[in-house]
């Protein structure tokens, strides 16, 4: 997340002033697990614990969703996104949607 667009989940940016609110900026990604990871996770399901393959997969997808939101904000002429919320939902069994949304703003 090394970007010129500032991201925060607060409704203001610490130490900066918002001069204009532009509107909603959003990004989503739908990713499916693949068979290799499913088999590994299936074995892990016997002993329990963290499913690392899935953690990495979703981390990657979340980064993509945040990047798309950032691009959306940039296209609208913003230089920051505030009040960001992240959500995950399972679209069908085996596929997850990662969704990031926030308010695009212009900082002083």
């Amino acid at each position, binding site marked *: 997340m090394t970007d010129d667009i500032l991201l*925060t*989940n*607060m*409704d203001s940016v*610490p*130490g900066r002033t918002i001069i204009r609110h532009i509107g909603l900026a959003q990004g989503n990604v739908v990713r499916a697990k693949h068979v290799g990871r499913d088999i590994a996770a299936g074995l892990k399901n016997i002993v*329990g614990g963290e499913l690392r393959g899935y*953690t990495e997969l979703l981390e990657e997808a979340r980064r993509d969703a945040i990047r798309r939101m950032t691009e959306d904000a940039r296209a609208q002429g913003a230089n920051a996104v505030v009040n960001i919320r*992240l959500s995950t939902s399972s679209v069908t069994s085996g596929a997850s949607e990662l969704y990031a949304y926030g308010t695009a703003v212009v900082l002083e």
Partner: protein
Amino acid sequence: MNDILTSMLISIGPFVALLLIGLTFGTLAQRRHLAQLDQREAELGDFMLTTLEHAPGRHGALVTGSTVVAFDFFRRIAILLRKIIGGRFRMHETMMMRARREAMLRMAESAKAQGAVAVHNIRLVSSNLGNSGSAMGGCEVVAYGTAVWI
């Protein structure tokens, strides 16, 4: 008579073995993980984590941490039995809290590594991955917040 016993053993043997493996490894992993969480939380020291919406600081940036966890075979069967009479699922409460602490620690550690002094406005969300009640699936926990620098 012996034949019936043998065939019964063969049919329920793998199930019982899976239950035992799940219980043993699941409990061992839990004990190890809880000890590791305690240690890592102690290492964080006075790094501040809050749910405050407005916080002091000169610069902020989004930080996230996440983990996907699954119950072991024993706990998955236990939940099915527990569902009949209802009530608290203590084993599963522990599991979810472990996942939450792990996600929060990952977020805090990444913020600390970037030189932040605190993370404010922390949100924790969790979601089901597929059908976690059955053979596959797990639960994802995400922690995110705004890291601030002084």
